[in-house]
């Protein structure tokens, strides 16, 4: 599992990454009440806004840490946003994305580096 400084996690399977937000991020957000996901087939450059997450307190975004095309989205978290608070690093993944270049993942944080970031 890889991590970003914006508190997302990514796991790679072939050339497809699954992306979600970390437990730390979910705790900081508080109760999530609304999620807007991209559509399958949407393409994103690094830094582009992919998702919106609204908690009771405020709105925040997931921006693309890597470039690619959306292959699957998790409708379960749209129907039940509370899932993000219950199981952020498991069932409550956000989307899957086919990468243009798998090698870019090497630039992201590993678990140890992410833990150091949030401590």
């Amino acid at each position, binding site marked *: 599992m890889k991590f970003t400084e914006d508190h997302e996690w990514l796991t790679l399977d072939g050339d497809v990454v699954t992306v979600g937000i970390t437990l730390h991020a979910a705790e900081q957000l508080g*109760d999530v*009440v609304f999620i807007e996901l991209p559509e399958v087939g949407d393409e994103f450059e690094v830094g582009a806004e992919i998702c919106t997450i609204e908690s009771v307190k405020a709105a925040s975004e997931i921006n693309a840490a890597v470039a690619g095309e959306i292959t699957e989205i998790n409708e379960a978290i749209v129907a039940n946003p509370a899932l993000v608070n219950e199981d952020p690093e498991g069932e409550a993944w956000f989307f899957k994305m086919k990468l243009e270049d798998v090698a870019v993942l090497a630039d992201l944080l590993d678990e140890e580096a992410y833990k150091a970031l949030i401590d």
Partner: protein
Amino acid sequence: MSEDDLKRTPLDAFHARHGARMTGFAGWRMPVQYAAGPLKEHASAREGAALFDVGHMGQVNLRPRSGRIEDAMLALERLTPAAVLGLPDGRQRYAVLTNDAGGIEDDLMVSNRGDRLALVVNAANAEADVALLRRLEDVCEVEPLGRGLIALQGPGAESVLTTLGAAAGGLRFMDAASLTVAGVAVEATRSGYTGEDGFELSVAAEHAPALAEALVEAGAAPGGLAARDTLRLEAGLPLHGSDIDAGTSPVEAGLTFAIQKARRAGGEREGGFPGAERILRELVDGPDRIRVGLRPEGRAPFRAHVPLFEAEDASAPVGEVSSGTFGASAGGPVAMAYLPPRLAAPSTPLWGEVRGKRLAAAVHALPFVPHRYKR
């Protein structure tokens, strides 16, 4: 402002003990939520009893130098369009402080405690309010208090206090009285800012932690600022700094209930408050814009400053959201907004622009969740 510069209420250690996440708010270090999270804390206030530290709010006594409470009441009327004279001993009233432009400097609660008026003002405005109140020093001693303040809110609030030996059942909505709760002397009012039955308990700072722990022991769940905000929004209660401010008149804000007949045109104490010209005119002619409730049709909350349009393709906005969130009891997003009076009727369709998209909404009568005060 760094963490060290933030003021701490007497319940700072209580919050830490109960796992609160703290944030800076109006210069104070305050709990935004506890481990339960804002949704559960919100539910506690609607279904049981929730405890909120509101010790950041300003508590100020006005004591008449003459010893006659009527003198303090008339003095306060120089700063507010509310009728304060005539407020019975042991009763509380909502009031706004106005400026010369007819805007709202702050909103507050004032209680007649027989020998003094007890005011509770917003934390962010407390210093400015005290400066304003010092204009009344010809008549009153102005005493800012360093006391704790705990809001106990929800249908279970009375039984929590009764369990702790307080004769809370003797108070009805907007009564003020001295009580003893778990052996601690408090100045209580049966009021709050959640739309629920409940109490606000002013307590000497040194006794505040023991009182808070006793309330939790008796069944109250601690709640943070996030839950307080969703509760007051569902109850249609404006927040100064968001829904009302120095540019908003009380008529625009829909707070005409806080301008009693005695202060209006033809009343026995007509005018005589800052901004009277504008406010009395708006009471007759109507304001240019008015505060309304708004329900987005989808699940996306409309937050503050979302522009509102009459049609999906309209180019110029007709109004703006002043605050908005997800209302757990309302079962969806809720907001307050300012609109021209012609668009203020419930069910009027509108469009809000959220992240570049026009989303449908409709005007909704306030409150979103019925008040359940014990009148």
